């Protein structure tokens, strides 16, 4: 019966001019492993998972949560028990039904992984998870050891992809073979080669798209090929010469002229923190609030956008992206004011020497930056900021590490890391506060431990907030406080994903983590 | 004559007017030939004529431009070489011909026999394949017949097994065989002129004679004109009708062999004549003879060097090779003992044993009463202080990165002899002894001539004031004039300092000039030994006799001379 409905999908009817077509998406990496648990949150594989798998919930670009595989859900007052009601008739591409037991199997492996086999848990899945039960074929009940308000948004986060229980039962080496993985998404893997390409073809019987995107039947495009081209300029040039349809992560410098040539440029912002530094308050001189404030005022954010980026980038208005529900505008705290910065530094005892560099007790004023290896433009921004700070007597040293070394050497509050460059997404602003300190396995971004009373207080209040409305003013206060204290120094709102797209391709949708979905897209000849 | 017809035909093609020349005209006429490499003129205004069926020898020291002239005739000058003047072949100016028009002459009309047989055949192709190229110059379409012709020619030049030679690669044949092959290939197309550039200088004395005999024979049998290049006046006089003496690219003297050889007009030709050992066996008699008296004192005085029953074997590729076999000899202090023999007869091995550089399998060696065998390098240092060696090749025995002063001084420093000033003084003295001026002190070996280098090597051996100097063919890499200088230096030092020499050579004429006693070696054994007068005057062994017969004597030249020369004595000895 379900297959029957698929055939009568309006999108397939004769009046739709755009059905069919193949597109090529040029990407800079295809990530590492394809074990679903280990790769789901990779920013590259997310593109493929987004087409091959579905999620329980849908989170749109503005952070709004809506039904998908879960048609409805309920929670108890203490947010420790959740009931999910599933859409019926959904199947994985290997034929297994996507029912309650399949969801339980997924929840279990998200939480625990199979560590001895090298299948990791999903790190961001709530650690308070206790267990889940299949009440009937379409009802799942999930139990938590403690209140977990963030559970529902997490289900729409890119880590939480639903995979066939048969796939999950396979050993790691099998799961790592993408072609052996079955999801319930609108596309299935046709073929792939490690480090080269992944080709997806449309699943004709797909009929359970998220209502929020306005289409639920099979996808329009016949196939999507993700092709690895590691040079950004080559990706763009290939799209320009019509050898491909989408180039991912183009160099910002080229966007202006591409736009002029008629290409679609998408710079969706994900939900999360802006690009900026978490300051290590344990490390002199950044233990001095005046120095931190001077840093806050000494950066010309507009110039960053003008020089390194394009107007598609937005000025940071807080330390979280402005599209995150609950973000407030703190722009006046982030205004460029070199005079103020110099004054603050003078007050803090840092005096300008003959060479233009400020010193105190013979020590020069130095800021060591570790460029974020995940963000291609990071080095250029660092260089520009180095110029800006240089003018007010700050000496900036830039270190660039590869991903691995960065992971080894650069940590929040690390001994030689005064500023940790953040590029980080999240779905629910409520989780923010707890990351900042070290309570409850928090990450202790500013190395404050439990020393800042105000921050601790705000954190606890936000965690205990019963509703979104009561949480809002607390979040505003938190943003103001952190920026005033100079704990976090925003640089720009982050656009981690840049899409350059052929004008023939239309109708794609960007979700809350800025992934493009071509489920709804069409291509004209 | 078929070849003559072909040639005429050929020239008719080149130049319609050029063939009607009288037979009496010279085959090769060179006039005002100058050759330069880059800026440097190495042959200046050379001229001579070579008649049909005649032979002419170009002689001169190394670097005098002999090969350059030969190559100019063949138009095979290396890159950078440029010839001007006139080269007429069979009445036809050929220097100005285009390469395309000249090429047919090569091989067909002018054959070429190179100096070094080892390098003159392509190492990666069989002899046969290369012979076929020469055979292609004959107008013979049938390949089988061409091959038969090749094999016949190989037999004609004295190769025993022509088919085997035909199938061999060059490295599978000896130098003498290769030279025969090359001569065969050169005469195969029946050229009118054969240019032979020092065809025997890389060969052993005995083989040298055979090759020269072969060339003379072919020249007469096939009526070929021969342009022979050599630095050995005796050879030239023996084999050529006319001589051209060169120095620094300039003709010093030219004329019939008889006149040039017997009555050299130029100073240079006279010196050349005087420097050839074979022609002047008694040249150093005054310096050498006084030491003969030591030979008589055998009974009352132990010999300076005593080698007895020494045998040395090497194992090469699993085969045992006895390089020195039961060799014994003794040398009295103050005399010169010569070891002679063909290449590979074990001379070098014998003296390496004598120096302790190799250890004998059996036998004993004593120098000045001290045992040398069975000792380590370290313990031999003290012996070497009084026992020195001068190597055969002056180009490799001096460290090219050192200056002359350092080189000569090295042994003094190593043996820690004297103070700084004394060492400096001794270095000067040694250099002075060998006739090297102070202006050479700061030169490196590459800036010295071969003769100068060998003198440095001798000075270095002398500077320690050793009792015994062993000389391994110290002059074989040098030309006669330089050799004569060095020999004179050695003999006057012996007369002055009473040194004892062990002198290795394959040149019997040279040995005849300077040695007191001689051991003749063949295949590792000493076949005959005695005083120089005994050996040369009355050789007992056929081997010794064959060695002696190989010495070129300039006999032909003398035979053509109007008046016999007094220096024929040696020749008469040989005949006796």
């Amino acid at each position: 019966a379900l297959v029957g409905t698929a055939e009568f999908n309006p999108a397939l009817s004769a009046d739709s001019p755009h059905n069919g077509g193949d597109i090529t998406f040029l990407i800079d990496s295809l990530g590492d492993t394809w074990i679903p648990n280990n790769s789901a949150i990779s920013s590259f594989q997310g593109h493929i998972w987004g087409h091959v798998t579905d999620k329980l919930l849908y989170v749109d670009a503005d952070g709004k949560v809506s039904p998908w595989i879960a048609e409805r859900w309920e929670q108890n007052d203490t947010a420790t028990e959740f009931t999910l009601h599933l859409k019926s008739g959904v199947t994985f591409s290997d034929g297994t039904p996507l029912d309650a037991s399949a969801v339980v199997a997924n929840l279990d492996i998200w939480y625990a992984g199979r560590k001895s086999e090298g299948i990791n848990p999903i790190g961001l899945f709530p650690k308070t998870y206790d267990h889940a039960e299949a009440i009937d074929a379409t009802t799942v009940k999930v139990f938590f050891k403690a209140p977990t308000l963030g559970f529902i948004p997490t289900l729409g986060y890119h880590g939480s992809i639903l995979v066939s229980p048969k796939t999950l039962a396979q050993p790691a080496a099998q799961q790592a073979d993408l072609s052996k993985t079955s999801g319930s998404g609108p596309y299935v893997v046709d073929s792939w080669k490690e480090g080269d390409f992944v080709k997806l073809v449309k699943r004709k019987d797909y009929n359970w798209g998220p209502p929020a995107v306005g289409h639920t039947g099979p996808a329009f495009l016949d196939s999507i090929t993700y092709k690895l081209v590691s040079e950004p300029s080559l990706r763009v040039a290939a799209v320009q010469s019509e050898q491909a349809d989408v180039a991912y992560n183009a160099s910002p410098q080229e966007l202006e002229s591409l736009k002029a040539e008629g290409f679609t440029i998408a710079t969706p912002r994900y939900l999360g923190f802006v690009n900026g530094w978490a300051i290590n308050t344990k490390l002199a001189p950044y233990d001095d609030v005046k120095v931190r404030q001077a840093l806050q005022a000494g950066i010309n954010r507009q110039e960053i956008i003008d020089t390194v980026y394009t107007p598609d980038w937005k000025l940071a208005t807080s330390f979280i992206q402005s599209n995150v529900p609950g973000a407030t505008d703190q722009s006046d705290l982030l205004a460029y004011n070199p005079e103020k910065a110099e004054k603050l530094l003078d007050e803090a005892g840092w005096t300008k020497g003959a060479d233009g560099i400020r010193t105190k007790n013979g020590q020069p004023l130095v800021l060591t930056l570790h460029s974020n290896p995940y963000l291609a433009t990071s080095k250029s921004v660092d260089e520009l900021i180095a110029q800006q700070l240089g003018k007010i007597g700050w000496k900036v040293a830039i270190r660039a590490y590869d991903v691995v070394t960065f992971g080894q050497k650069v940590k929040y509050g690390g001994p030689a890391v005064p500023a940790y460059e953040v590029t980080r997404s999240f779905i629910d602003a409520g989780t923010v506060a707890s990351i900042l300190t070290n309570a409850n396995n928090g990450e202790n971004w500013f190395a404050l431990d439990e020393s800042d009373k105000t921050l601790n207080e705000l954190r606890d209040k936000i965690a205990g907030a019963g509703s979104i409305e009561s949480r809002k003013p607390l979040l505003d206060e938190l943003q103001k406080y952190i920026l005033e204290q100079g704990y976090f120094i925003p640089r720009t709102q982050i656009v981690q994903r840049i899409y350059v797209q052929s004008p023939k391709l239309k109708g794609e949708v960007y979700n809350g983590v800025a992934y493009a979905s071509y489920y709804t897209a069409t291509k004209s000849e | 004559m078929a070849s003559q017809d072909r040639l005429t035909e050929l020239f008719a093609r080149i130049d319609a007017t050029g063939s009607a020349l009288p037979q009496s005209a010279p085959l090769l006429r060179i006039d005002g030939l100058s050759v330069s490499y880059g800026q440097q003129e190495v042959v200046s205004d050379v001229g001579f004529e070579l008649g049909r069926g005649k032979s002419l020898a170009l002689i001169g020291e190394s670097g005098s431009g002999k090969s350059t002239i030969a190559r100019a005739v063949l138009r095979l000058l290396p890159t950078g070489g440029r010839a001007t003047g006139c080269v007429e072949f069979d009445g036809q100016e050929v220097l100005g011909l285009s390469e395309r028009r000249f090429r047919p002459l090569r091989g067909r009309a002018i054959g070429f026999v190179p100096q070094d047989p080892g390098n003159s055949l392509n190492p990666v192709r069989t002899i046969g394949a290369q012979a076929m190229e020469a055979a292609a110059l004959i107008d013979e379409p049938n390949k089988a017949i061409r091959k038969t012709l090749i094999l016949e020619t190989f037999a004609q030049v004295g190769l025993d097994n022509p088919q085997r030679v035909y199938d061999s690669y060059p490295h599978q044949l000896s130098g003498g065989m290769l030279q025969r092959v090359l001569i065969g290939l050169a005469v195969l197309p029946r050229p009118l002129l054969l240019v032979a550039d020092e065809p025997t200088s890389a060969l052993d004395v005995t083989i040298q004679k055979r090759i020269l005999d072969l060339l003379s024979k072919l020249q007469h049998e096939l009526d070929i004109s021969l342009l022979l290049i050599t630095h050995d006046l005796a050879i030239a006089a023996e084999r050529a009708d006319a001589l051209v003496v060169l120095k620094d690219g300039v003709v010093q003297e030219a004329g019939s062999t008889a006149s040039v050889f017997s009555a050299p007009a130029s100073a240079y030709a006279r010196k050349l004549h005087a420097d050839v050992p074979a022609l002047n066996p008694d040249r150093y008699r005054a310096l050498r003879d006084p030491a003969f008296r030591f030979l008589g004192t055998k009974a009352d005085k132990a010999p300076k060097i005593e080698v007895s029953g020494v045998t040395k074997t090497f194992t090469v590729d699993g085969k045992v090779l006895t390089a020195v076999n039961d060799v014994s000899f003794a040398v009295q202090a103050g005399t010169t003992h010569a070891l002679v023999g063909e290449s590979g007869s074990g001379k070098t091995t014998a003296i390496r044993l004598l120096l302790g550089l190799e250890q004998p399998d059996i036998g004993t060696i004593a120098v000045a009463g001290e045992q040398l065998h069975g000792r380590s390098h370290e313990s031999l240092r003290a012996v070497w202080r009084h026992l020195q060696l001068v190597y055969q090749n002056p180009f490799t025995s001096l460290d090219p990165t050192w200056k002359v002063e350092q080189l000569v001084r090295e042994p003094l420093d190593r043996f820690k002899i004297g103070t700084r000033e004394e060492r400096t003084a001794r270095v000067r003295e040694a250099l002075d002894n060998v006739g090297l001026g102070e202006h050479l002190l700061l030169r490196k070996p590459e800036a010295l001539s071969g003769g100068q280098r060998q003198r440095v090597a001798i000075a270095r051996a002398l500077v320690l004031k050793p009792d015994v100097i062993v000389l391994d063919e110290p002059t074989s890499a040098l030309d006669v004039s330089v050799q004569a200088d060095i020999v004179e230096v050695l003999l006057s030092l012996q007369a002055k300092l009473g040194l004892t020499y062990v002198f290795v050579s394959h040149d019997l004429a040279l040995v005849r000039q300077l040695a007191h006693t001689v051991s003749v070696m063949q295949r590792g054994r000493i076949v005959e030994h005695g005083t120089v007068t005994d050996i040369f005057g009355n050789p007992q062994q056929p081997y010794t006799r064959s060695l002696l017969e190989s010495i070129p004597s300039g006999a032909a030249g003398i035979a053509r001379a109007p008046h016999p020369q007094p220096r024929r004595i040696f020749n008469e000895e040989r005949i006796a």
Partner: protein
Amino acid sequence: MTLASTYSTSRVTAIGRLTAFRVPPVVALSFAIVALAIAWSLAPSLFTSYDPVNGVPAQKLLGPSAAHWFGTDHLGRDLYTRVVYGTASSVASALIAVVIGVFAGGLIGLLAGFFGGWVDTLFARLVDVLLAIPKFLLAVIVVTAIGFDTTNAAIATGVSAVALFARVMRSEVIKTRQATFVESSFLLGGSRWHILWRHVLPNASRSVLPLAVLQFGDSILVIASLAFLGYGDPPPASDWGLLISIGKDYLKWPWLVYAPAFVTIATVLSVNRISRWLRKTD
């Protein structure tokens, strides 16, 4: 008879030496280019008035002109200035690589060749192992192991050249060791060490010199390649390889690639020419 007579050869060699040392124009040009590169690395500020680090953001990505010979980069910095200031690091790192290769490789080769026996066998196998691993692969692995920066890339490049120098040195030493003058030095009372240091080393080194010069040019390329793959210094360093590597992201503004590439090529080519010339005159 005058024993002191000098031969015509002395005249010949004198002329020979003159011609040998007359520098052909191409080589002279090469020397000039290398000299310029050295001058750039010693006193970059003499050759340009711009700041290599701080640019004028408003003047980004300008094409080559009289004011900016090589144009400007994405941050509005004068590219010529960046090239000039990047020379020191490019040249110094290539030097480091050569020094490591020559010294480590030379020592291994010297000992292996001179002592022979088990020392030789041991070193020979080590060198074989190093040779068996593709040079560039080895450099990539070594630079990863010791961390990404230009100095480390230079060290890695040096390490990957060790085998080559060891091998050349060894064969030269063996050749020299068999030379007559070495044995002759024994007879003249020289000890093993004396011979090793005073005879074998200087002679064997003669052919290592042109090779070292050649390796210098090669090292510039290898280090640039490593920088190209992202194993070089962080910004604002402006090593030539880094500049090309950055430039490749801006293919629309091709001078960002071609200008530093041209400087690199010109320098390496000059160095190769000089090496070739050294080999000839040796």
